[in-house]
């Protein structure tokens, strides 16, 4: 039924197609890129900074590599990075939230105050500092961003867990003698999954944006990795002459984030029981 409603919303459908297309690009990058050796960073210096043409759709960059191929390879990097960031944040935040919501009392307070602290911290600064402390690299930037993101999932999970706690099936489970830990793992955790899934789908786009931002600042992927944010940063130096180098990767970042966000938005509308009944109440 969800698919049915999703299909009724043409925007979500289009975004799903775009996402699948991007995944396709990422998986088959080596076969789809017209210049596969671009990934290795093999310089063809004689070709540097060529404007877009039929041989180089997006032009070339400072090493003479084909920007179009680089962007395709970048798809793989960004999608993976986005996935890992969200996965890590969820793995940390979700259980914490369930524990907080279910336990209540002092544990709840402790976890939530910590969450508030992290949330009050300007996330970019925190991510920057962590990335810097760990040393600039793609993986470290992913970790850094996850450290600033998990609080959102904790909050989400906690609210859900807290309301589930009041339900009778929890009382019933306790009456049978299930330990708190069992209840949390077997009952509460699975039941809080839905909003987490929706939120994480919606967050994929933002995760990709965040990662591109860190790479742009030089704290993420390092040259000559074909990461979109990094390319924009390198392209900035020649922005007024070789504009294509900074522009096209950005277009892809925008499209990717937009596709994920649109899809997530459609998902949310489809799953929201109140919004679902559009006509006839």
């Amino acid at each position: 039924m969800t698919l049915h409603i999703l299909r009724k919303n043409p925007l979500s459908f289009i975004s799903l197609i775009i996402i699948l297309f991007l995944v396709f690009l990422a998986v088959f990058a080596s076969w789809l890129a017209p210049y596969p050796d671009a990934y290795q960073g093999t310089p063809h210096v004689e070709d540097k900074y060529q404007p877009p043409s039929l041989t180089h759709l997006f032009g070339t960059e400072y090493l003479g590599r084909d920007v179009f191929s680089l962007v395709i390879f970048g798809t793989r990097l960004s999608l993976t990075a986005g996935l890992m960031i969200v996965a890590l944040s969820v793995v940390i935040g979700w259980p914490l939230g369930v524990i907080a919501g279910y336990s209540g009392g002092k544990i709840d307070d402790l976890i939530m105050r910590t969450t508030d602290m992290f949330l009050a911290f300007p996330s970019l600064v925190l991510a920057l500092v962590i990335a810097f402390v760990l040393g600039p690299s793609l993986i470290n930037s992913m970790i850094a961003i996850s450290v600033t993101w998990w609080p959102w999932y904790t909050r989400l999970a906690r609210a859900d867990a807290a309301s589930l706690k009041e339900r009778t099936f929890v009382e019933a489970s306790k009456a049978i003698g299930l330990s708190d830990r069992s209840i949390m793992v077997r009952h509460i955790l699975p039941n809080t999954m839905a909003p987490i899934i929706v939120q994480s789908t919606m967050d994929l786009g933002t995760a990709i944006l965040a990662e591109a931002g860190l790479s742009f600042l030089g704290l993420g992927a390092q040259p000559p990795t074909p990461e979109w944010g990094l390319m924009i940063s390198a392209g900035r130096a020649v922005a007024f002459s070789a504009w294509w180098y900074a522009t096209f990767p950005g277009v892809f970042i925008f499209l990717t984030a937009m596709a994920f966000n649109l899809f997530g938005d459609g998902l949310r509308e489809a799953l929201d029981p109140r919004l679902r009944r559009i006509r006839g109440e």
Partner: protein
Amino acid sequence: MTKSLLSVQDLRVDFDTYDGVVKALDGVTFRILEGEIFGLVGETGCGKTITALSIIRLVPENGRITQGRILFRAEDLLQKTEEEMRKLRGGKISMIFQDPSVSLNPVFTVGEQTTHIISVHQNLERDDAVRKTIEAFELVALSDPEKTMKQYPHELSGGMQQRVMIAMALSSDPDMLIADEPTSSVDVTIQAQLLKRLMQIKSTRNLAILLITHNMGIVAETCDKVGVMYAGNIVEMGPMREVLKNPLHPYTQGLLAAIPKPETRRTRLPLVKGSIPDLINRPQGCAFHPRCPYAIDVCQAEKPVLLENGPGRYAACHLVNR
């Protein structure tokens, strides 16, 4: 002879939904006299609330009143402009709803909300409006009206919230009050108190009340006349005592039989078999015939009309009307 206050004639209302057109009301006809309490009963989904909303023309967006007349003192409400209706609502005709906790605006005090309503209907200075608010609160037996006025809805108990709603509804001395399940969300003791107060107010002000409920007990205690609704039609109507003692329509009989009585020693409550029909694809003929234990051939073919069966007694059933 008491004058007729409200006369609903052949009211039909359709709703546009995802799955098709729902024929919610299929020709509702009834009349309420001045100062009379008319109980409209039926199970959930039979169209009682839609009927009420149609009278004040606040049918939800996807609903359409397709046919009928609603005469309020000989004027057809369905012909009035929106502005004329607006003046009537809360003025001559007031409606209160089931759950007061969501019916009151949470960011204004109950006093403010009541004063708003009063100022809209009775061109008064602020101080006069405030005084009228206090009067209205006293009318519904709210203790310490001046203190209550300054409170927010969530600070009041369910019973008090409902009293506030009634105060708002009666503040401009309407001729008719429509009460949609007014006591369903409060507990039984409060329910009794509210009903008692309502009855007192009714007699002093000659207020007509359209009381919508699924609770036959309340009907028995308060109503002068009762109308039984099923699937968008009135299937039986008449003076309360007579309908309760001698129900004509099989559905009414089923409803009354299902009320547990302490005297009977039966172990199981008799059920009315089946469930309410699909209102998009209504059954042919009588809407009740699939569940009716006495259905005969004509019930499937022709839709029965509400016919008089004695002084003020109406039933829509082929068997009864022969």
